[in-house]
């Protein structure tokens, strides 16, 4: 047993700063065994699919212009958008992964939840309203506002596509594994179903359908998690102290689960992680797009307020569910049996964490089974599938918009493309992204893809975010500074991550990492900002002078919304 716990600690330490990113990625890693067909889950999932297809049909009839397709006509309310943003953030893997972390380590799970959340207030205070006032459909609209369109849009589109691709691979592989485990369905079928449904939502229903699918899933996930937390607390007369005491008595780590463990020791890693989470969130193209779906800056602010509330509430629930899992899984049930362990512990010994069926990420699912029976287990399984579907739809739309709005309409057609053509390109790209991700999902079935979400976050934080932030805050920035800084951020983040322990050592199997830290955020983000600064101030070209003069008009618009995009008429 000691060997088992040491192994978990070792694995977590090896994944180090990227653990939370990994948590967002593949929910289930390694080979999984196909389970018996879970009919309750399949029926509930079918009901979800039928309902969302109905919404897509409704949305398709309302989606006519480019503004409808990319930004849901700008008519989403702050509350709805807050739910949708929270939905993008509460992926299946963050639900299963954080509950699993709490189950295995107790308090440490809370540290990660906090890290995921605190970026949101900063986004609200410094970025949200400027972004809404300046942008139209994609974040590149803001980043390229007063600069030369071709280089900045090309770079932003590359940053978006890189982020989206790595994120999608992780989600597709996670989906396949999870569905295999929960539904008793073949991996390949799960991947194909996810791919086909997301193509359907996005091509026909655009942002309106994508947003509503995300809202419905967020409500399902929040209700399911609330029910679980309520049932767990009810068993202990709503006394957290009683629940903690029971957990301490059955957990092999005992009272240690109530205090911070070995997950974060070195401050450089901690700060680097915090920066990647905070700035990465503010650089994810599918999240940034959501700020353009609301009518004005006022609604954009409300979106973040509601999103922060829902995400924070969700993390508190996950913490309770993780402790519930300790009690449902490691303690014997009413009949003295251990239904969720591969082997019952020897008489007098505590159960081992790792003997859980399906791995620690299954902790929340087993807990659902224990508190709500077969029907609720089916519901939570269906929610997990729906969650992945909703997240991949948002990613695909962001990727397609980068191609149609940034590359096709601005770079290739130089702004002369008509709306109908632009939407057509977007729909064709959606189909291509869908098909490519099905193939990537199949190709990466047996690879360790957990690091890919970390990669997506670091790229978003180092390539997309610095350009976006500096273009809004710093009048002396020029095209040259933006292009060189963004490129350096992109290249350095990928290089350092690949040479670091997560990829070089853990994935490629080299004996030692060349770059010492798991998360290069601190270094690559800094490099990118410094490069933007240096290559801007040394730029004295005619073009640079003009770009600096244009800042004042941009500044007024970003602060007041003068000339900003409004909601469409219908």
């Amino acid at each position, binding site marked *: 047993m000691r060997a088992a716990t040491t192994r978990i600690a070792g694995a977590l330490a090896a994944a180090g700063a990227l653990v939370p990113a990994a948590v967002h990625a593949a929910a289930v890693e390694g080979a999984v065994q196909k389970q018996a067909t879970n009919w309750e889950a399949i029926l509930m999932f079918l009901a979800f699919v039928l309902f969302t297809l109905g919404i897509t049909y409704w949305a398709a009839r309302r989606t006519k212009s480019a503004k409808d397709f990319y930004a849901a006509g700008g008519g989403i309310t702050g509350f709805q958008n807050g739910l949708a943003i929270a939905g993008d953030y509460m992926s299946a893997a963050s639900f299963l992964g954080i509950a699993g972390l709490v189950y295995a380590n107790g*308090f440490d799970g*809370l*540290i990660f*939840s*906090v*890290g995921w*959340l*605190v970026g*949101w*207030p*900063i986004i*609200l*205070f*410094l970025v949200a*309203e400027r972004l809404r006032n300046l942008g139209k459909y994609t974040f590149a609209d803001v980043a390229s506002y007063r600069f030369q369109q071709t280089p900045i849009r090309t770079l932003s589109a590359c940053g978006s596509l890189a982020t989206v691709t790595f994120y999608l691979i992780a989600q597709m592989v996670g989906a396949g594994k999870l569905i295999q485990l929960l539904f008793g369905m073949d991996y390949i079928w799960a991947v194909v179903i996810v791919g086909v449904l997301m193509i359907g939502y996005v091509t026909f229903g655009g942002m309106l359908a994508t947003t509503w699918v995300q809202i419905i899933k967020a409500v399902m996930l929040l209700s399911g998690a609330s029910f679980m937390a309520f049932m767990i607390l009810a068993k202990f007369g709503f006394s*957290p*102290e009683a629940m*903690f*005491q029971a957990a*301490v008595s059955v957990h092999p780590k005992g*009272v240690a689960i*109530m*205090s*911070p463990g070995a997950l*974060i*020791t*070195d*401050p450089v890693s*901690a*700060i680097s992680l*915090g920066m990647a989470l905070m700035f990465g969130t503010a650089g994810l193209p599918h999240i940034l797009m959501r700020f353009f779906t609301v009518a004005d800056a*006022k609604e954009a*602010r*409300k979106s*973040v*307020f509601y999103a*922060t*509330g829902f995400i*924070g509430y969700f*993390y*508190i629930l996950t913490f309770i569910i993780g402790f519930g899992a300790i009690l449902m899984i490691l303690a014997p049930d009413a009949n003295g049996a251990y239904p969720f362990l591969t082997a019952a512990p020897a008489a007098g010994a505590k159960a081992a964490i790792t003997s859980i069926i399906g791995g620690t990420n299954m902790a929340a699912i087993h807990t659902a089974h224990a508190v709500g029976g077969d029907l609720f287990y089916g519901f939570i399984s269906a929610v997990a599938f729906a969650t992945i579907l909703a997240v991949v739809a948002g990613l695909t739309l962001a990727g397609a918009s980068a191609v149609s709005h940034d590359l096709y309409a601005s770079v290739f057609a130089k702004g002369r493309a008509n709306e109908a053509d632009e939407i057509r390109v977007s729909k064709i790209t959606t189909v291509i992204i869908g098909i490519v991700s099905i193939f990537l999902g199949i190709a990466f079935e047996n690879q360790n893809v957990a690091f890919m979400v970390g990669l997506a976050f670091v790229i978003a934080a180092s390539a997309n975010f610095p350009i976006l932030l500096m273009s809004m805050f710093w009048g002396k920035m020029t095209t040259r500074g933006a292009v060189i800084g963004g490129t350096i951020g992109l290249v350095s983040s990928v290089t350092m991550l690949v040479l670091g322990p997560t990829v070089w050592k853990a994935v490629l199997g080299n004996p030692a990492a060349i770059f010492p830290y798991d998360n290069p955020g601190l270094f690559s983000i800094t490099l990118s900002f410094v490069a933007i600064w240096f290559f801007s101030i040394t730029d004295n070209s005619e073009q640079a002078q003009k770009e600096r*003069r*244009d800042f*004042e*008009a941009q500044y*007024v*618009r970003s*602060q*007041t*919304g*003068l000339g900003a995009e409004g909601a469409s008429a219908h």
Partner: protein
Amino acid sequence: MNQNAQRILSNPKFQELIAKRSAFAWTLSVAMLVIYYGFILLVAFGKGFLGTPIGAGVTTWGIPIGLFTIVSAFILTGIYVNRANGEFDELNRQIMEDLK
């Protein structure tokens, strides 16, 4: 630069809006960062304190402090939205009104 933007720039109300809103936004940002990094530094260097039980039970100080960090994020966003959607938006409305 277009004329409207020029007029807004020279409007004292605009200067007032920018000064108030930036000061408020940066203050709240710093508050959030201090709370978050304070928590992370406690995790890295103050494990003993976070692991100390409150009273006689097993619930440690780490639990309410962690929950406080989560709740504070929500409260700070609420404080900002309340003032921005009220006072700041009113000022902004007046600035746009002055253009007419």
